[in-house]
């Protein structure tokens, strides 16, 4: 076997090793890479920034711990921004294993601003079958969630006074890693027409630019880069900005592998041709 053929059939574990090494480097030596903000992220920031104290909005924490890395910085920044502006937040969870994590994050941020459940925010908890839950929340929160996560009837919560369904809040920001985003667009905005913005993982973001253009969503926070932008805009920083150096190095390695792979492919083919 020639060198090129060997390269073509490179054991995948060498690739794994290279990725591992470049991800460990920034954990040891820290350095910074510049980030610029984009309009689709800015629109989400402005939506919350322009609300008045006492205004309600719905925040969907619809991801589970597996997507924590990309999406938690968004949740953190948005919750901080909302509580610092004294906005009322209704939080729901359509991801089965996100509910515990969402509760931890929420109570942590609420404690910073001395916000109380039932007065400043309402945590609805989790229900399965997201499409159906969104549809019923468009009619009445109380059908799907007669009680909040802590077992308190929604009717007795101050924050839910006069808030019957999703049409009664200023809008919905949904942060998700799955096709729940499609359901918010299809069944939420599609059936009820409330303003909707979404925060999604990098993998999903390509699919949602079309909804931005068609007006079905008004803003989009795409992946960790979007989260880093939101951190710059809002000033509430967790791990979004920090993780950009990992990205740069890892992307460089993958690009390098693609180049090597193609050089090898053409070299091996030329050898064979001769």
């Amino acid at each position, binding site marked *: 076997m020639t060198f090129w053929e060997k390269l073509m059939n490179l054991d995948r574990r060498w690739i794994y090793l290279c990725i591992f090494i470049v991800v460990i480097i920034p954990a040891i030596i820290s350095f910074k890479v510049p980030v610029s903000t984009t309009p689709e992220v800015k629109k989400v920031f402005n939506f919350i920034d322009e609300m008045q104290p006492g205004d309600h909005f719905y925040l969907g924490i619809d991801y589970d711990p597996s997507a924590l890395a990309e999406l938690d910085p968004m949740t953190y920044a948005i919750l901080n921004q909302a509580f610092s502006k004294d906005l009322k937040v209704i939080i729901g969870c359509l991801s089965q294993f996100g509910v*515990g994590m969402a509760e931890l994050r929420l109570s942590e941020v609420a404690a910073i601003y001395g916000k109380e459940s039932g007065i400043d925010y309402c945590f609805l908890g989790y229900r399965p079958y997201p499409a159906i839950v969104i549809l*019923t929340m468009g009619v009445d929160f109380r059908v799907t969630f007669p009680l909040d996560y802590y077992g308190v009837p929604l009717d007795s919560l101050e924050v839910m006074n006069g808030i019957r369904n999703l049409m009664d809040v200023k809008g919905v920001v949904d942060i998700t890693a799955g096709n729940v985003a499609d359901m918010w667009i299809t069944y939420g905005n599609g059936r009820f027409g409330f303003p909707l913005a979404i925060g999604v993982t990098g993998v999903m973001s390509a699919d949602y630019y079309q909804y931005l253009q068609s007006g079905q969503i008004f803003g989009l926070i795409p992946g960790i880069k979007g989260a880093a932008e939101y951190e710059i805009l809002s000033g509430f920083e967790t791990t979004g900005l920090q993780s950009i150096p990992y990205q740069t190095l890892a992307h460089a390695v993958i690009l390098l592998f693609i180049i090597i792979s193609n050089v090898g492919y053409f070299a091996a083919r030329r050898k064979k041709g001769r």
Partner: protein
Amino acid sequence: MRKQIPIYFVLVSGIVMIIQYFVPSEESEWLFTYANDWVIVIGIYALPLGIYSLVKAEFKKLKNPGEAFYAGVLLFGYFIMVFTGLTRASREAASLHMVLFNNILIPIQATIFSLLAFYIASAAYRAFRARTILATILLLTAFIIMIRLIPLGPLSELNQWLVTKILTIPNMAAKRAITMGVGLGVIATCIKIILGIERTYLGHD
């Protein structure tokens, strides 16, 4: 009759839900909300089916010396979560139930998911070779998109422009066409199911 009645069930419930969409009255809203809720309740009742099957299969494995250890691990994990989670208080962060959740479930889940970083690199290495025109297009587009995270000085601006164009023109056209195709496929499949032409999922004796 046993074979026919379920098909009528599908027909009637399907048609009723289609008609419901066009009727805004209160009765119709009630029907919509409850029909959806009923589906959830059926799902709740189906869960014991799955759990029974899982636990039964693992108990069976306990008798096989080669598999007994791993079956024991699974059953241990299952029952410890059930017993620690029996009370309402178990929903709070400090309970053993949630501590187990945070220190077993979260790290393993997140780590399995993070394997994707390695897989995406090896998939790129194997699949992104300019063998055919289609593969070349796939490879070049991915390359242009990925390189946006590398600071290239003035070239970065050109790249950002190109990335935006790719995302808003061919990418959007592709997604629209796929969405419309999927839409027609979904509706045609639904019609076939409602009319009882496609009924393989329903089974018979």
